[in-house]
């Protein structure tokens, strides 16, 4: 009988307590999600015990016009606010990285405020702000999403700026100078050297902004009008009456979409890096 060697200092996988905590983490992280997905196929209204497989709640969700509308609203807001946040966040990061100007430190602090102040305060502030300036209600779609989108941009772009800024801190400024030295104009050296360097940060920041916008409840709740309902707000109002598998089905679709987009983004980034 051969005795197994004692675990080495870096053999974490063989230490029992570490393995235990690893599995526990997985359990707490993913069990609720797996449950949600599984029960979206459950053939039962009360949704507590498994009664057999069905797709009827997907069909029901698909035919629930207000749910689909909320879903479309959410995706539209997320897309627009992601694009805007990436551009704005990138410009902010480059500004803070490249230039020295009076009031830079306060500016930098103010920029990260949306990250640290409680969401509820931000929501109330946004609501008060839009009411004060008399933001028009009853605009046609998609203009009626303007207020929510602006609110989402304002709390997402600092995240993009932070991610890109962190990456820029390791940028060798001689690379940009080398491009200039070889004949590139300022814009060309930005496009050919700085932008490719920032790309992983932009992708990561974009993903962050997308998910932040997609699942934001508090700020959206305060800035949405009666006709502009987003998916999280809609789910909340549905659940107040009853937990139906319809909600599970819609959530599963949302998870699928998010995973799909993330995969595409990562794949794009990988391809850019390996080429």
């Amino acid at each position, binding site marked *: 009988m051969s005795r197994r060697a004692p675990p080495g200092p870096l053999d974490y996988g063989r230490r029992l307590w570490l393995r235990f905590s690893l599995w526990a983490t997985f359990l707490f992280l993913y069990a609720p999600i797996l449950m949600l997905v599984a029960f979206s196929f459950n053939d039962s209204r009360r949704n507590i015990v498994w009664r057999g497989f069905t797709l009827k709640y997907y069909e029901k969700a698909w035919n629930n016009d207000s749910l689909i509308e909320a879903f479309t609203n959410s995706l539209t807001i997320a897309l627009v606010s992601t694009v805007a946040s990436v551009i704005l966040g990138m410009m902010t990061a480059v500004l803070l990285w490249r230039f020295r100007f009076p009031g830079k430190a306060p500016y930098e602090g103010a920029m990260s405020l949306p990250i640290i102040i409680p969401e509820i305060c931000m929501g109330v502030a946004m609501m008060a702000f839009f009411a004060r300036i008399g933001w028009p209600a009853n605009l046609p779609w998609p203009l009626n999403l303007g207020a929510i989108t602006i609110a989402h941009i304002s709390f997402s772009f600092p995240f993009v700026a932070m991610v890109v800024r962190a990456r820029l801190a390791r940028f*060798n400024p001689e690379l940009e*100078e080398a*491009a*200039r*030295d070889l004949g590139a104009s300022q814009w*060309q050296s930005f496009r050919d050297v700085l932008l490719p*360097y920032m790309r992983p940060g932009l992708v990561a920041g974009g993903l962050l902004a997308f998910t932040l916008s997609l699942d934001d409840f508090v700020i959206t709740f305060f800035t949405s009008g009666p006709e502009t309902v987003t998916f999280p707000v809609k789910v909340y109002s549905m659940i107040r009456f009853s937990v139906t598998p319809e909600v599970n089905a819609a959530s599963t679709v949302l998870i699928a979409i998010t995973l799909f987009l993330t995969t595409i983004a990562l794949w794009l980034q990988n391809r850019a890096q390996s080429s």
Partner: protein
Amino acid sequence: MVRDPHGRPPIISINGVSKSFPGGVQALADISIEVAEGEFFALLGPSGCGKTTLLRILAGFETPSKGDVFIDGRNMSRVAPNHRPVNMVFQSYAVFPHMTVAENVAYGLKVGGGDRSGIPARVEEALELVRLAGYGDRSPQQLSGGQTQRVALARALVKKPRVLLLDEPLSALDAKLREAMQLELVRLQETVGITFVIVTHDQNEALSMADRIAVIEQGRLLQVASPLELYEYPTSRFVADFIGKMNLFEGTNLGCAGGVLSVNVNGLGRMDIPCEDNIEGDVGLAVRPEKMLLYDHRPDDRLAYEAIVDKIAYQGSETRVFLSTGDGINFEVSVRNASRRAAAESASGSVWVAWHPADTLILRD
């Protein structure tokens, strides 16, 4: 005082350039240098003396606080870096990590616009010039330090600049490779015939490569001269000490008569040194360690002082012997190890340190 056999105007002329950075750092003070076309010119000085700043002013990344720079007869004060007839090899090489070797070299040709048909051939030619033919498809991450440096060289040379600026191009390489690249750079410069301005803090590098060297200290230009002149006839204590090793003695000037300067050296007594013109005021005397010889008896045809051997440092081709006199004067003598026997027999005890009066330098600054 640029010596151009064809009487052409200097390719670079730096006229009274000063540079102060915000915060009060004076990086350069009133520098004037002229570089002849086709010259291999070195800027030499200790760390922080302003070499990089001067090079960046030539490339257009810094603007002088005072003075002008002319390149190829044109005043550069309002010319952006991308419109200057110079290219630079950066200290970090700055090879674009997201482009292949060939794309890196082609970048300067593509970005200017114009005819693109000749680019692949020119890239190939440039890679051949730096002995990297066949490396075009590699990514910079797959290259060694020396190869990366040669990509940076090819990328700059392919633009056929009037002047190539190099900022400590060899400092990241190990000693052996550095020596090989020194020869390679000289060969390259002779092949392409482009003026090279190289920044270095390594005096051996400057001495072995450059046609002329400018020594800078704390932003001030001390001396511009050929390697031989700089080593054998430095004009200031700083240059004498910075280039190579030097024994420095301080003394009182006793007067100059009949081509002989008499100096009363503290601790060594009177020395008579041949000199050309009248020198007044206190002077420093300097002798290179390799110009000094060790004797076990007093030689009568040269200056000689008795001293005790303190320490010996064997360094392969030579042995450095450190001595001191009873009056606290220190000597450093370098003995060439011309044979194995000579290498094994090291000096010890009391010996005579001697040198020719003509090998003594008179330093006024």
